């Protein structure tokens, strides 16, 4: 990925509202959890990747991913942001917008290829279960990045317990050694869980 003077940049066409540095889009860690992850913990394999993004919202992060990726499948279930997502897709050949509930992957099964990277940013109680159901799209050896919002979960103890629970669920679903990564510096109360979908582990089930 492209870095300059500590800034993460994005090589695509500039969109309205973008900030620009040396002629390139700034991918701001304060506005995108994926950018925050890159800043704090390292880059996920996005270059030329096929990506499934659950909880795409109006497509801000998706637009940056699409600058790097081969194709981004963007799932969002709320009508208002979907409209922006469609506008975005019309400006970028490699964004496939899907107006669907990520809880029911069978509904968008006919429109999504096997992907190298599955990113989920959905603030729901059953977020781990949603991720598991969508593993059907992830290639063996592909990466899962799951953003958890723990701000509203009360005490530290409860948060810890919840993270452990999510990690256990993911390991059970075939994700090897998921890493728990703190995004607090840019997104208060948010954590990422990052792991690799492993063929062997999956077969053990």
């Amino acid at each position, binding site marked *: 990925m492209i870095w300059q003077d500590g800034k993460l940049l994005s090589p695509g066409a500039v969109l309205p509202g973008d900030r620009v540095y040396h002629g390139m889009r700034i991918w701001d860690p304060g506005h995108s959890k994926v950018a925050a992850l890159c800043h704090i913990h390292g880059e996920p394999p996005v270059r030329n990747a096929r990506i499934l993004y659950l909880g795409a919202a109006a497509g801000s992060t998706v637009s940056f991913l699409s600058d790097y990726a081969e194709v981004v499948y963007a799932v969002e279930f709320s009508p208002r942001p979907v409209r922006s997502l469609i506008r975005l897709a019309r400006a970028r*050949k490699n964004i496939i917008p899907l107006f669907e509930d990520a809880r029911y992957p069978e509904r968008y099964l006919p429109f999504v290829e096997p992907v190298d990277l599955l990113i989920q940013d959905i603030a729901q109680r059953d977020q781990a279960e949603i991720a598991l159901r969508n593993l059907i799209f992830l290639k063996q050896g592909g990466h899962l990045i799951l953003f958890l919002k723990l701000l509203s979960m009360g005490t530290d103890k409860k948060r810890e317990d919840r993270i452990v629970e999510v990690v256990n669920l993911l390991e059970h679903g075939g994700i090897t050694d998921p890493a728990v990564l703190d995004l607090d510096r840019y997104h208060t109360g948010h954590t990422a869980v990052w792991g690799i979908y492993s063929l062997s582990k999956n077969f053990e089930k």
Partner: protein
Amino acid sequence: MAKNQVNRAFQYWYEALQQGPADFLTPATSSLADIIDTIRESRGKSELLPLPLWEEAVSAGFVPDRNGYLSILQDIAIGLTIRDLEERCDKDEAALIHLIRILDEIDQSIARLSEKIEDYYIALHPAGLSGYERNISSLIESLAKDQTQPMSHLARNIQRFRESRTLISQNVRDYATKCLPNMSALCGPLVSARLLAGAGSKYHLAGMPAASIQVLGAGPSLFMHLTSGTNPPKHGIIYQYKGVHHAKRRVRGRVSRVLACQLAIAARIDYFRGALDDEFIRKAGEKICRAGKTD
């Protein structure tokens, strides 16, 4: 995947390819539109199959290359989304929310432009500063009348904007009375529409506790703030309702609390039933009235 499965999964892809993807937006006769309808129907019957790999699609001759594959996929995805959007969204609700935003934008444009014109006028006529009682709209009015003024054209257009505002606010009233009948009966259609816009949807509004409705939109109303320098409203949007606004200061808190309680119920009736409930309105009106009595 078995060969015949690939074929069935690619049936609509193939047809789309034959017709070209460009015109599925024109009326429902076009073929990609038909394909999308077919997909939607089969989705209802859970007949959908997973997407074949692009290599399979190319080798089966359905698409020329990877770009062709993605391009048709995008066309179908966008087409499906638009159909679903049309069906799923509540147009009255959407219209109301956007009309409120347009109203606010008009107010802000008028306020900002008027201020800039005032600055211009005062810079050129500092003598005006002395007796000057700050009243921007009368300045705009006099500039609009005087055709010799360079700002006359712009000032007239600002006045025309006020007419647009009046028209649109009548639109808002009509939609709100229809879409939020019970809330409109309690606190007027304009305030109801603002509450809807603040909450984002009837669904969200119906799920809100009274305390949240009471402080909804407690940020400053920019227009009032800019033009008259008033305090930003402490009580949120419902403070704009004259029943609260005109209540005596010491009962104002109580009136807005009771009103918010009744509005929370009205929002649920509007969302779940959608029809005016005369009995509820009568009782709610009595409660609000009682809260406003200074005893």
